């Protein structure tokens, strides 16, 4: 089941690249095909979700095959509630993104075939990352996601894309390098303890020495902190988001960056509980810095894409804070937060991306009074913005409040500082809306036309889910709670 789920988009990507490339209509066929593939993946994932037993906290639908025997590497995949949450996020967002990106102007008349194929490859790799229960398999899939993103930014982005892609690659490779060291270290420790194995189930049986555990944990954390992105390792994100297409930004920030926070749980808390406990005060402090720093930098941004990127730095701060507060409430909240943030940031990147491509500028000051001529666009920007500021009634509120409430029970000062973020969030969202959408329509903003039916079709599912999960979040929480309880139960 899981292998099928991961294989659909990757095989689909190969097929799409084989389709004839050339004129617009042929490229349109490729785009249709890619959308079709992503919908098939969505269907397969929904079947998997239907078969998933929500009350069991452990891994289900496990598949295991020996892979590289001398290394002890297995092709071992399985789904728990946390992984399924993120798989669902991935398969929901990919068709949305593909639909929204139908008319993306690609630089230098590049073919759309590869553009959409890379996105599908990324989807497949993301599914593999979220389901891998073997450290080596995880590492390989984790690093492999860099390739599609590198090309999506470097080949299809806007101005400054090559430099941004390089920055992205180097940052993440450096983080990955430390993780590689830890992965190698895991082999040594595992081989010492008996038979070498990278399977999570085997690794979690090993009694690490205290220092070894800390070192290995830090190796993994380095990669995750860059990916997540945790202050001060975040600076690649605004650069990358400012040069990528909106579709790429969504896949990068909403899905792939979640690998960082997801990894913190599966390959941090689950594998190295003692070290995670040891590091948690520092990580929580950095998370709170991220929350406030990201929000302030968003307020101070003049470029819309950078603004949205900084809001994510702030939101990732909440996610990390909740994970490392180690309470059922906050950690469940963080997992739900990953899902909700994925939706709300996707909506925000996509709608601002449409604004920017119409206007030909990403500067906030290039807009003004747009609601007059584009009421639907302004309405969706407002809803996406309100979800970003965690308005009660919308999905992100539930997760953010859980994170704060859970954190408050273990660390009042940090929770209080994090709560200040809700005022800053109101400022960055409403100032953006005010400056771009309200007031008299400016001469230069007249070129902005309202959303097309296709764009509305792409964004509506996001809006519906954001509102729906704001009022009825419990099905998602039921999925998350048992898995989180199991992870937290392993902590000292």
């Amino acid at each position, binding site marked *: 089941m899981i292998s099928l789920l991961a294989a659909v988009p990757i095989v689909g990507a190969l097929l799409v690249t084989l389709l004839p490339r050339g004129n617009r209509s042929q490229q349109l066929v490729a785009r249709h095909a890619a959308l079709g593939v992503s919908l098939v993946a969505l269907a397969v994932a929904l079947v998997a979700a239907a078969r998933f037993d929500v009350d069991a906290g452990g891994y289900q639908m496990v598949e295991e095959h020996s892979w590289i025997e001398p290394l002890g590497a297995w092709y071992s995949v399985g789904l728990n509630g946390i992984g399924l949450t993120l798989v669902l996020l991935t398969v929901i967002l990919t068709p949305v993104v593909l639909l929204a990106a139908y008319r993306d102007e690609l630089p230098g008349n590049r073919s759309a075939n590869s553009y959409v194929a890379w996105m599908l490859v990324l989807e497949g790799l993301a599914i593999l990352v979220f389901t891998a229960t073997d450290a080596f398999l995880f590492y390989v899939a984790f690093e492999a996601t860099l390739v599609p993103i590198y090309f999506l930014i470097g080949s299809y982005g806007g101005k400054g894309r090559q430099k941004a*892609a390089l*920055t992205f*690659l*180097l*940052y993440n*490779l450096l983080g990955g*390098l430390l993780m*590689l*060291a830890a992965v*190698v*270290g895991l082999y*040594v420790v595992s081989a010492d303890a008996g038979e070498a194995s990278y399977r999570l189930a085997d690794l979690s049986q090993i009694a690490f020495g205290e220092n*070894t555990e800390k070192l290995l944990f830090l190796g993994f954390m380095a990669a995750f902190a860059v990916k997540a992105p945790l202050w*001060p390792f975040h*600076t690649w994100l*605004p*650069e990358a988001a400012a040069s990528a297409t909106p579709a790429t930004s969504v896949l990068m920030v909403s899905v792939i960056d979640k690998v960082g926070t997801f990894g913190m749980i599966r390959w941090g808390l689950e594998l190295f509980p003692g070290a995670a406990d040891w590091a948690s005060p520092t990580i929580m402090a950095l998370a709170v810095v991220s929350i406030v*720093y990201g929000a*302030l*930098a*968003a*307020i*101070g*941004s*003049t470029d819309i894409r950078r603004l949205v990127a*900084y809001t994510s730095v702030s939101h990732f701060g909440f996610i990390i804070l909740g994970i490392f507060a180690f309470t*059922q*409430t906050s950690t469940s909240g963080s997992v739900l937060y990953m899902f909700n943030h994925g939706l709300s940031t996707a909506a925000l990147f996509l709608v601002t991306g449409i604004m920017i491509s119409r206007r030909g500028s990403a500067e906030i000051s290039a807009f003004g*009074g747009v*609601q007059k001529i584009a009421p639907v666009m302004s309405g969706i920007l407002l809803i996406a913005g309100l979800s970003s500021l965690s*308005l*009660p*009634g919308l999905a992100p*509120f539930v997760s953010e*409040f*859980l994170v*704060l*409430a*859970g954190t*408050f*029970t273990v660390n009042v000062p940090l*929770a*209080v500082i994090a*709560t*200040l973020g*809700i*005022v*800053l969030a*109101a*400022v960055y969202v*409403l*100032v953006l*809306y*005010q400056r771009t*959408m*309200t007031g008299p329509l400016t001469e230069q903003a007249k070129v902005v036309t309202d959303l097309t039916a296709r764009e509305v079709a792409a964004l509506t599912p996001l809006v519906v889910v954001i509102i729906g999960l704001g009022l009825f979040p*419990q099905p998602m929480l039921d999925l998350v*709670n048992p898995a*989180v*309880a199991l992870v937290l139960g392993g902590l000292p």
Partner: protein
Amino acid sequence: MIIWLLVAFPALGAALLLTWGKESDRFGHLIATAASAASFVWGLVLFVQLLGRDHDDRTVTESLFTWISTGPQGSGAFHVEMSFVYDPLAALFVLLITGVGTLIHVYSIGYMEHDDRRRRFFAFLNLFVAAMLVLVLAGDYLVLFLGWEGVGLASYLLIGFWQHKPSAAAAAKKAFVVNRVGDIGMALAIMLMFKEFGTTEIAAVGDSVAGATANTITALGLLLLLGACGKSAQVPLQSWLLDAMEGPTPVSALIHAATMVTAGVYLVVRSNAIFDASETARTAVVIVGLVTLIAGAIIGCAKDDIKKALAGSTMSQIGYMMLAAGLGPAGYAFAIFHLVTHGFFKANMFLGAGSVMHAMDDDVNMRHYGALRTALPVTFATFGLGYLAIIGFPGFSGFFSKDKIIEAALAHNVWIGLATVLGAGITAFYMTRLMAMTFAGQKRWKDEVHPHESPRVMTVPLMVLAAASVLGGILLLGDWITDWLEPVVGHTEHHEVVIGGVELAPIAVSALVTLVVAAGVAIAWATYGRREVEGETPEKVSILTRFARNDLYGDTVNEWVAVRPTMGLARGLARFDQHGLHRAITGFVELIGEGATAMRSWQNGFVRSYALGVFLGALALTLALLVVIWR
């Protein structure tokens, strides 16, 4: 009793109007009005049912579904039921919200007739009513917070309804952001409840108070008060309310006078278990109320904009309610009583102001009015009745409700009591000034303005509200309202007013207040009624007037204490992040980048990237091996 139906009507109305296309423009306002009216009728039905129950059996709880849960109830995990509680306090609010709300819907049919976004306007009004009902019916603080933020959203959307006006958009944002400062208090209070009591259900929190430490209770009280200050425009979070007058006038009447801004008072009264247990928190509430009642009254004296004068008045009147709520069991019922009567007469006067603006081509400057009593006879009459009610003319609703608060304040502390008496005098002054400038004297409007009475659809709601302003005192007959609220706020002891060892009979207090009110009326009449009012705002005025005109410099303080430092820090940080931190971290990345650029001369396309990848891969492996060997 099906409680959720109350919320369902307007919620459905809003959803329908927001998603239905242009074809519903013709009848959208009717759907919205019907939705609000249906909710009112259902509110009446429930109210009658509640009346029929025993005194001690008037709390009905309805749990719809589990909203948010990270574990079973009572296990220490976070667990919130989407639950409603219908009790005497909620019942009064339901009737006030849907009753006044429906009247204002009707009025808006006329007022917004020529606005091409009227359907949207009614959708937001419905959204507001639904959210406000959630707020007052909530059985859990987090559900209350949902309504709390919902009304905040509706307020934001409606203040900024005319988004093309930069001033309206700015006012809407300001209202939301200032309220968010208060929300910090609300949010932290709920977190503290969860931490200390393991629940956020209102009744359960009330039961847990007995076992909590004094510090916890006081912290809870102060945090809730911070939230209340934001929503109810109390000092120091008052600055948004005057700007909120940018919204269409029916909005000012419904949200920024009769209902939403009183939510802070509701919160304090609803949390009476907490405030009963903390004298410090109660004292803080009294101080906030007292300061705001005087500050709002002073602001009201200096405004030439009719809506802003009324907004200052609203602040001040809510100050009275807040003060009463801060008196504890002696004041809760009177706070709610004044809240209800104020809802009637202030909604009446705001709608009256809207009727005047309607007649005066949307001019809000009272210096351009004068002598409108003949041109707008109905508006004059209804406004006049509201005026008599607010100044506390004997027999009118405000007379009873304000007197009760003053009496309770005097019994609590003579100086606080005297300050509320003074406030009544200032109220009489600014309201008489407003009446005189608008309806009395000579006409000061230009010849091209042709004031005309508003259509029936607008004047009928005015008449109904005027009648309620006159008769609202009935609620006090036989102490009905204190008895009615007793199951919620507890028994109210009657406290004697003792000044200097002399016991003052209630009638003596009333006489004193009436005397001060008469003085306020006389001074205002001498200044603005008998003398000719200048057509333009005079420049040379006393420091006090200037102080009042600038809203006591509240905005200036915010600007220098909060806005400028934050924005400066934010801009600096954004620049530092892009050019400082990023540069520093990528310093050596740049070096490698330059190396790669150098290689471009003999490599093309993406090969250089591959090369880079290989290079880094090799580096990674080497380092990894080093780590392993070193180990």
